[in-house]
């Protein structure tokens, strides 16, 4: 166990190092940070002086060593745009992203399990086929398109007049398809509850939850089909196994068989995949946050790129790298605990 943790921590350090080197190496391609800091009419000399002051004229190696020296003391530099330590900026934006991920995960959990199980138990039912069809469509639509459509329907509202208004059925169809809109389309709203530190939460007020609905649904829309399919496939496999057949022969009720015996074993691999996917979801938040002007780290990162705010870009990449390393380590630990035949360090026992 200890050996495993030591191995993981050294891996994490290596990952951080590689990320920081890569981030530093690409900074030349990201453009000139000065462009966002001075007006167009500022003279070349003034720019040169500022560049010198920021240390941008030093060679890449010198700049990296300076950065690494500070980083070892926990200082990842100051953001050019925010004028504050980058870690502080990230800490301010991270809660918004985490709430988005939590909200989307909840939606995924509460929808994927029942739908997946249903589709596995009754694979031939038309409803099951419908869910599988919809999930194929869902998996192939990019998240920003989903988001824009959701905003149009539930935020702005649409008026449908395709059917003849003078017939009863036409009026009914028009009415049924027309939406009023009204859901907030951007930001987190005004009523945030302060939890601790930089964490202001939207989960504790109606307004906050209303603001969460559309972004979370959009974000969930990419992962939901994946999980439905995963649960369905796993469940179908488990249902074929001997112990389930034995349970049936024994005459246990199908509810007990499906939800107690089969589901338990289905969920094992799902949890593993889920843990890894949370990390992937953090990456997907970049798109979702842009469309909904959600003030999280994804949006912050994208804006940092357009502004060539290099210290913030480097710090973000390192923090996200750290999140990936931590979630993967946790998943491995949990897996090891659940399934004792897995050896953490890969050595012979």
């Amino acid at each position, binding site marked *: 166990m200890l050996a495993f943790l030591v191995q993981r921590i050294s891996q994490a350090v290596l990952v951080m190092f590689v990320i920081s080197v890569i981030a530093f190496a690409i900074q030349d*391609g*990201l*453009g*000139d*940070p000065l*462009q*966002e*800091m*001075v*007006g*167009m*009419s*500022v*003279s*070349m*000399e*003034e720019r040169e002086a*500022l560049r010198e*002051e*920021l240390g941008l004229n030093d060679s890449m190696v010198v700049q990296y060593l300076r950065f690494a020296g500070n980083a070892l003391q926990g200082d990842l530099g*100051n953001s*050019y*745009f*925010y*004028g*504050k330590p980058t870690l502080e900026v990230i800490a*301010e934006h991270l809660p918004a992203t985490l709430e988005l991920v939590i909200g989307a995960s909840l939606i995924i959990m509460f929808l994927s399990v029942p739908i997946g199980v249903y589709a596995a138990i009754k694979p031939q039912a038309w409803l099951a086929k419908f869910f599988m069809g919809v999930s194929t469509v869902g998996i192939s639509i990019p998240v920003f398109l989903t988001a*824009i459509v959701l*905003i*149009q329907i*539930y*935020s*702005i*509202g649409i008026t449908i007049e395709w059917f003849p208004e003078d017939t009863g059925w036409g009026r009914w169809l028009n009415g049924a398809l027309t*939406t*009023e*809109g*009204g*859901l*907030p*389309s*951007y*930001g987190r709203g*005004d009523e945030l509850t302060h939890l601790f530190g930089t964490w202001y939460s939207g989960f504790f007020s*109606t307004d906050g939850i*209303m603001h969460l*609905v559309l972004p979370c649904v959009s974000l969930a829309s990419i992962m939901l089909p994946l999980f439905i399919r995963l649960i369905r496939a796993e469940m179908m496999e488990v249902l074929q196994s001997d112990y389930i057949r034995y349970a049936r022969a024994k005459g246990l009720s199908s509810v007990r068989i499906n939800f107690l015996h089969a589901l338990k074993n289905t969920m094992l691999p799902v949890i593993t995949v889920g843990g890894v996917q949370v990390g992937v979801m953090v990456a997907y938040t970049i798109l979702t946050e*842009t*469309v*909904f*002007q959600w*003030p999280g780290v994804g949006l*912050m990162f994208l*804006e940092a*790129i*357009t*502004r*060539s705010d290099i210290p913030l870009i480097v710090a973000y990449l390192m923090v996200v790298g750290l999140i990936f390393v931590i979630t993967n380590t946790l998943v491995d630990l949990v897996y090891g605990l659940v399934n004792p035949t897995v050896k953490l360090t890969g050595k012979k026992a």
Partner: protein
Amino acid sequence: MKKLLAALVGTMALATAPVALSAEATKELKMAYDADPVTLDIHEQLSGGILQLSHMSFDPLVRWTKDLGFEGRLAESWERVDDKTMRFKLREGVKFHSGNEFTTKDVKFTYDRLKESQDFKAIFQPFSGINVIDDYTFELVTSEPFPLLLNTATYIFPLDSQFYSGETADGKKKSAIVKHGNSFASDNLSGTGPFVVKSRQQGVRMEFERFSDYWDEESPGNVKKIVLTPIKENNTRVSALLSGGVDFIAPVPPTDLDRIKRDKNSELVTMSGTRIILFHMNQERVEAFKNPKVRQAVAYAINQEGIAAKIMKGFATPAAQMSPTGYQGHNESLKPRYDVKKAQQLMKEAGYEDGFTITMMAPNNRYVNDDKIAQAAAAMLARINIKVDLKTLPKAQYWPEYDNRSGDMMLIGWHADTEDSANFFEFLTFCPEAGSGAGQYNAGNYCNPEIDALVAKANVETDIEKRTAMLQEVEKRLYDDAAFVPLHWQDLAWASKKNVKIEPILNVMNFPFLGDLVIE
């Protein structure tokens, strides 16, 4: 699922209804710009966002009116004492947000600070000093006769000298202008303007409240509270207005103009702007561009009206010169001259009938449709056998390339900080000279000392009629010489809910005077 969401939407509508009513009673304005101010220190950066903030929380000595005239704000009156001196009389009884009384000492403090500011010192370079006469009278002195004195005075937004003097708890000077990192002035603000900054979460939201002791009691403005949210994504900004999430947005992307026009609850205001979009033809890199006939051929080959109509969807005014209408240098006689036959003829005369190959560079996220404009221009040049190798880049990478003059033709948009024609010439067509900074953005390397001398003469000419004639002549000569290829002036667009009367407070400089905004 659908029912569930419908029910959700229903309860939502019920829940928000009372809130909407009370918002109207207190006249709260929710607005969304594409960005929020980078800092609260209005001398840290010269940019549109900072000037918009300046007009909300500060007042200038004088400000531009809709028709590009001047209107006194903190300056009650002004008169020329001699060629080089202008005497200003200040409004009395004006208070800063901090409660301090506003007098000439604050003007002096602000003037000195502007002279220090990296971004503003160039604009204030013609000034040689300020003479304080008494608490409410002072004189601005220039080293040469300076016709643009009032234009420049629109940049003097007096700061609260007492508030910005002294040291912070950790021993830093409060008046320091720091480009990056935290300074006192970048987080704290005290001006005389209509709105006090209540809270600010950079990049997320900013709240303003009307200043209870605001001096301008005749202002019709009835907005008590402003919430500014930066929404960078065009689509999201428009959706926020259409869904009722905000009351006022700017800018409106050209692709959504029709959508807003169709919406019965929204109002759209557009205006022909003052930012010129143009191409430079680099004579140092391409031998052929040294020949005026080739340059003219390029100018004849580019269809400005086509670009404005098809690519900009009418959201631009085709240009044949740099100065927009209303500027002294604007020369009515110059018209776009699209004529492919003529262009081919000129190429033939110049001995380039078979054409040549050039590189072209343009940004792809700086100006409206900038990359598409460049693509269209490249296609148009193919018709006179100029093959274009086009490269478009994000702005952060484009400007370093621009500074290196990496392309044979490069696109740039320019807005004159002084709202005056001479500024265009100084930056875009003056003979490039590293020391003085003349022609800093002249990527064509076009150089005509005679024209430069004429502009220099106009710059010390205080007789408006004479000056106008000079500047118009400059435009004419640049046109004849085809020093560059002008494309269009980018239009401006704002949109609001019907009850928010934005039209009277908007202007071509894009500083909405929100203090005077009326919400019905």
